[in-house]
């Protein structure tokens, strides 16, 4: 993968205590492949729990430490509520849409 490529992950389904590790595993795998720009699209996620939030925090912290770029797009419904309850809307790099994230990453 070229250094300027942006890796978009469309997450589908429920980010719960049984599934959330898969997203962390995927990002770790892509880091090995030298991906340095990530967009996580949560448009098709209807349910998230503390393990899912934990996965987002883990990914965000890991990428921040390495100065890599990440945006998390399309949080809505109960996913948005849970992130708000955890008060992480300022900590996580959120954008309304994938398009917005792409724009922001274009000039990085």
């Amino acid at each position, binding site marked *: 993968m070229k250094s300027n490529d942006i890796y978009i992950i469309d997450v589908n389904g429920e980010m719960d205590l049984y599934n959330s590790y898969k997203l962390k595993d995927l990002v770790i795998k892509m880091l090995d492949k030298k991906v340095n720009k990530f967009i996580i699209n949560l448009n098709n996620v209807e349910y998230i729990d*503390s393990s899912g939030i934990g996965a987002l*925090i883990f990914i965000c*912290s890991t990428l921040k430490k390495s100065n890599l770029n990440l945006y998390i797009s399309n949080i809505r419904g*109960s996913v948005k509520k849970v992130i708000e309850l955890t008060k*992480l809307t300022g*900590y996580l790099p959120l954008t309304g849409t994938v398009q917005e994230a792409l724009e922001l990453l274009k000039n990085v």
Partner: protein
Amino acid sequence: MSKVILKDNDHKLFNTDKMFYKEFPSDFRQIRYFTLLIVQKAPPEIKELNLLEQQISELIKNAVKHGNKSNPEKKIKVWYFFSQDETRLVVEDEGAGFTKIDEWNEFNSKRQDCLENNDFERLADYVAYTTEESDYHDGGNAMFAALEFWNEGVVFTEKANCVAVGKTYPKKQKGITIGE
């Protein structure tokens, strides 16, 4: 002052009169199924049922995983009550108890300081509460959200193997005034 997890055997949230009751084996694979069996009693008028399910699931997970260490020989006991105005829940496990409540409250207070000061750099140290027992799957953030969601409180017994929570919903305007 920021919200804290309480320890109080006599707290009113531990009054289980007229509450429904179920007990479950500590089977990690069935946590969300157990949660659904409880949430099905919630009246359809409750908004954000998905969120309620998630918050209840966290308490059941804590009891099954952290309390009973997913030992299927050990039970969890759940008392629950739903109305249009209120949700209450008591979850008890057979474990050693959440002994680090004071430490957790202190951690959360520092986290709140970071949030109030928009100090996101320092917040990175306080986004997840983990202990030597935490594993790859633990988010370490469930109780932060719980304190916000359960607006009537999050209370443990002194032994700390039993937690009670409550949430009240704002009352709807039921009539209109059309003159005195």
